[in-house]
């Protein structure tokens, strides 16, 4: 399962609030986080260009089951391509809209946001939700029009090369490889049956004279 990390730039969180942020007493309950991908080639002007539009990929995904309590407050969450409502093939920008209706928390956000690609068109998102989660997140992603040219390796996976014809006299490689595989399977079996049970000694070289005691 090869997973390729997509470099992304997470812009600062923007609170959505009615009125002046400085003077009003209440804390904002909605946050917006924008994520851009610097490695994606900028789109080119062509005659068939249609403008990019925002598409909702995930609606009301609940991160904290109870917004007033700590359950799930500092959890690691993964979102996968199969959970998305739309095709994640051509993504320019990601926008995470976070909602936290409970007034008990001073702040809320998601941290350690990481985006991964598995295979040419897969997109998975991992992130840790920081102290006090939003109660639900609504995630919207922008999709670019088909005129965007993606690097070739994304849309056309490289075909496997055929092996070169053998020289005479050498053993058949497929037979050799299957035999080697059997030997390797045996060694793996021996290695796998290594137990994790402890020996259970606590003295080292017959002594247990301690220096100091510390809590890690």
């Amino acid at each position, binding site marked *: 399962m090869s997973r390729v990390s997509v470099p992304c730039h997470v812009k600062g969180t923007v609170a959505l609030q009615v009125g002046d942020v400085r003077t009003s007493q209440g804390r904002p309950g909605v946050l917006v986080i924008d994520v851009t991908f610097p490695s994606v080639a900028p789109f080119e002007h062509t005659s068939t260009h249609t403008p990019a539009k925002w598409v909702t990929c995930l609606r009301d995904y609940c991160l904290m089951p109870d917004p007033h309590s700590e359950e799930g407050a500092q959890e690691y969450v993964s979102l996968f391509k199969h959970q998305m409502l739309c095709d994640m093939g051509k993504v320019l920008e990601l926008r995470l809209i976070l909602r936290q209706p409970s007034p*008990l928390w001073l702040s809320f956000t998601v941290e350690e946001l990481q985006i991964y690609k598995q295979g040419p068109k897969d997109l998975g998102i991992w992130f*840790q939700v920081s102290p006090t989660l939003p109660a639900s997140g609504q995630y919207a992603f922008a999709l670019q029009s088909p005129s965007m040219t993606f690097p070739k390796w994304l849309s056309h996976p490289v075909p496997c090369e055929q092996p070169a014809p053998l020289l005479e006299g050498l053993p058949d490689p497929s037979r050799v490889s299957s035999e080697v595989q059997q030997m390797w399977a045996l060694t793996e079996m021996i290695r796998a049956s290594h137990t994790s049970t402890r020996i259970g000694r*606590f*003295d*080292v070289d017959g002594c247990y004279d301690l*220096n100091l*005691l510390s809590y890690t």
Partner: protein
Amino acid sequence: MLQEESDLALIIAQIVQKLKGSNLYAQLERQAWASLQRPEIKLESLKEDIKEFFKISGWEKKLQNAVYSELSVFPLPSHPAAPPEHLKEPLVYMRKAQVLINLRNPNYENGDSHSFRTHLGLIQVPLKVKDIPELKEFFVELGLTAGQLGIDDSTQVPPELFENEHVRIGQKVLSEQDSAAAQQYIRQGSPTALRAELWALILNISSQPEDILYYEQLKTNVIQHDLLVDSLIYKDVKLTASNDDYYFVFEDYLYQVLLCFSRDTSVLGHFAYNSASPPKSYIRGKLGLEEYAVFYPPNGVIPFHGFSMYVAPLCFLYHEPSKLYQIFREMYVRFFFRLHSISSHPSGIVSLCLLFETLLQTYLPQLFYHLREIGAQPLRISFKWMVRAFSGYLATDQLLLLWDRILGYNSLEILAVLAAAVFAFRAVNLMEVTSLAAAEAVLADLSTLKVMPLLQIFLFATVT
């Protein structure tokens, strides 16, 4: 669905890895080899025939019990990006609070203004606790329509109504040797005659020669090495169990269990899911060298005042020291460690305290407010009950009925519910006291209380 399947595959792989090193694996292998002699095992269908043989001969049951016992302590599958500390304790401020000064979530707003969430108790951490409707659902087998040992076995109730049938079912469960069924059965209480075996079945303890040998090795360690914690244990036993009317006869057993317990390095395994960490040290002269790093005490648990009370009630059930030791060790790494480590687990002591205070504040607000006014925060009185799991406070038969339910529900929340139920029972007297000392005096003697009627009334029969 994909995620659940891959989670399940991961759990299965981890349990298999854990069981591979165990005694059961070696025994199963030996049995499989021996079974090849049998006529019904054919070469063409070798795998199926051996599986069939295991089913008939009861080995499958043993494997089932072992897997079930691993699942009971198994932590939830962790996210690949999560560090290992996250598995022990997900909340960062709880991890940092292991050397406790005060416990506070830095992101939690707890202003002076009385909002809908004002909590008048001592615990100010917003953990999720169950309320009475959820507790009713959780403890449904304790309901008014189900028979209970502790209520329906009293002398006024004819035994044909419930007790005889319950004992018969208990004997059947024991003959089937099924852990999961035993755990379900014991929720309605365990007959005294069957209790020792039922607890051993639920905790998956079977006294093998290897276990007895292990215990003997620990005893040799006791003779060879002296530890400072031995003095702590002596002092604790002398101060608590030896002074207790019920437990002073077991003083000898307590030493045999606790001194060996301190030297048992297999207990270190439970720190994988315990939020605490064992204190580490280095052999003298080798400071900083990781090969000479050891845990002190060898099992990583420093005993505290009252620790021996976890062992004392078990002495009524088990008379053979090695079995008593195994049962205590398993009870400790499954339940008792949560009573003295800071964590956000629903059975951890912080959650139990919060559950107790929330129940009291919600269902007995007048009492709660009155006690708070006179300077007797209810948690100050009930804390010691919960930390010791009521050992030493209740009569022994009642205590064992309570611990039956702890095993049956695999959770310690019943301790908080019982504490609230005791306050509810003595509410009339408590409303008249005017000081903390007087409140303590009202609640000083719990030895006459009957546990199951109290729980039933509080959960199912109180008009809220």
